[in-house]
């Protein structure tokens, strides 16, 4: 029950991401989202008494809620200019589209009769909708960093799915996934920094030379 509540909050936070204007505030929303995820995981650990779930909860909060926003924040600070997170389509339209995606997703996941996985699991549609919103964020945003943030939202969605259906992946796999997410965030920040130094802007319009 606790899990379904947090998953609804997560979906809302993802939608918020679509709405928000500046990059720094979207990083803060991401941190918030990861924090909620950690708390939900902590609660699940308490409920099932599994030691591994506790470790994962701590890890989520440490890595996703604190470390990753810190890295992203530091890169933004090193670029030291407040940046707009312009999008291809206006805020209102993108919010409408994102919620449309979520509604479509709920309709579809019902039809996919996944209830075999466990009648009590409600979070699958939420996880898939977070994945779709993450993708949506990556597609509509011009700024490179926002695409990185979209990627992390997708990872959060998948972590939520893993938690709800199978109490998280086997421990080594979870550690592996965390490591991968962490290193990819580091790589994203390095690349954004270098992009800023070469193109003096983070917009992906500069990344269009390789055609055909």
């Amino acid at each position: 029950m606790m899990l379904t509540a947090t998953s609804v909050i997560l979906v809302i936070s993802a939608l918020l991401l679509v709405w928000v204007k500046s990059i720094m505030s979207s990083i803060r929303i991401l941190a918030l989202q990861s924090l909620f995820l950690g708390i939900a995981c902590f609660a699940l650990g308490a409920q099932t008494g599994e030691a591994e779930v506790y470790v994962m909860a701590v890890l989520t909060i440490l890595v996703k809620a604190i470390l990753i926003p810190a890295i992203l924040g530091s890169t933004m600070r090193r670029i030291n200019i407040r940046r707009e997170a312009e999008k291809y389509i206006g805020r209102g339209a993108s919010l409408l589209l994102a919620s449309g995606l979520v509604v479509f997703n709920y309709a579809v996941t019902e039809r996919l009769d996944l209830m075999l996985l466990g009648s009590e699991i409600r979070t699958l549609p939420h996880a898939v909708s977070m994945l779709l919103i993450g993708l949506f964020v990556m597609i509509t945003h011009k700024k490179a960093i926002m695409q990185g943030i979209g990627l992390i939202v997708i990872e959060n969605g998948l972590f939520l799915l893993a938690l709800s259906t199978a109490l998280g992946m086997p421990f080594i796999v979870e550690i592996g996934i965390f490591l991968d997410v962490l290193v990819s965030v580091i790589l994203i920040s390095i690349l954004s920094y270098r992009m800023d130094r070469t193109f003096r802007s983070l917009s992906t319009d500069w990344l269009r030379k390789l055609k055909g």
Partner: protein
Amino acid sequence: MLPLWTLLVPAATGALCYAARNTRLIERVHLAGSTVASALALWLVWRVYEEGTVTALGQFFLVDALGAVVLAIIALVGWTASLFSVGYIRHERAKGALDARQVKQYYFWYHMFVATMLAVCMVNNLGLLWVAVEATTIVSAFLVALYRKGEALEAAWKYLILCGTGIAIALLGVILLYASAIRTFGDAHNVHELLNWSFLGNPDVRLQPQVVGLAFVFLLVGLGTKIGFAPMHFWLPDAHSQAPTPVSALLSGVLLNRAMLALIRFAVVAGHTVGLDEIRPYFIGAGLVSVLFAFPFVLVQQDLKRMLAFSTVEHMGIIAVAVGIGGAAGYAAAMLQMFNHAMAKSLLFMAAGNLTQKYGTKQMARITGALRILPFTGPAALVGVLAISGLPPFSLFTSEFSVAAAGFAEGRPWAAAVMLAGIALIFGAMLFHAGRMMFGAPREKPAAGELSRWSTYPLLLPLAFVVVFGLYIPPAVSGLIRRAADIMTGGWAS
């Protein structure tokens, strides 16, 4: 403990290279490390050929015949690429394209890349398999972004974002698979063991069909992005053309085989529950689309390395069609095609490296008379182009012929016919470019003569494989390939 050592050696060499001071030392460490790593890998392959499957660290590492074939590819191509990169990096260093720090970074990430690729074919747990594949993406993204140029940055960014999203979708598939495994066998077995290939590989393990079907779709699209199937391949030409040539040889020849190996393992698992007949149309569809999709891009291409990248997309399509056709003949043909393609493509990329360094441009229009100017690389490149387009005296003809023969035998005549037509069209397009580059009176500007010993001798190994495997395949190799095919048909009999 052999698999563990095979992993640790490249990691250690990477670290040492980074730590070493002068370039001479780095090169010596780099060569020693890669030779030892390849030797260990080949020894591991030989032991798999002897004992069937090799496990270590209590089922953490498991190398079966399927993994062994792919392991053999990384051993051979990895070694030749490392030999080639010594000459290549020296030339780039002399030209000033790379400074000392970048050279160190190159060698460090090169060995990390080899380590992660070795991990993919040795790890037993399918979840860890996914982690290893993700790791290869990130590490190779560093290598793609090595040059201080805008295009390299752009290519690395697209590579990272696209493959990251794809891999995330694949993770969704893995999670669904794991969930349904827990749901059916949750109580009987220990939770950690449920995602192991040794467990899921058995033919009698049946999971829930709908869930596994859906999971396979996500896996196909996710890993398909990594393999470079047609509609999801857009990162591939950028990454392969902007990366340093030895890395693009590894990317094209080896990395895509890892992703294909992962997809095949998941397909075998899904096949047990859902039945292979449902999996086949996905593979054949993706394969044919890739083969036909690559033709226009090869026809009107100006950049040499992008053309080779699109040819890789075509060959991944052929392997997918072969797996889709299935049956003992089909799978054996797929494995043979994978091996032959790796050899031919690495040969072509290294030759392309020499050409681009000699002529100082990647534009094919400005490269003429290569046969006269590069007396060894020119003919080698010509042999490579003929081999990659499936002309008989070379190995790829044998595998493409067996794919088509299997296609007609397994009742998939139209797929085989369309594939043959696609191959012929791409042959025409590639030969059009290669003919213009190879023949013709050489202009006086680039002086005749090979670059250096380092850039010609590595080409000999893949050239030998491409020519020899055309007519005679040693029984050891065909035995290994046949056993890998049995795994794909009958599933992993523990």
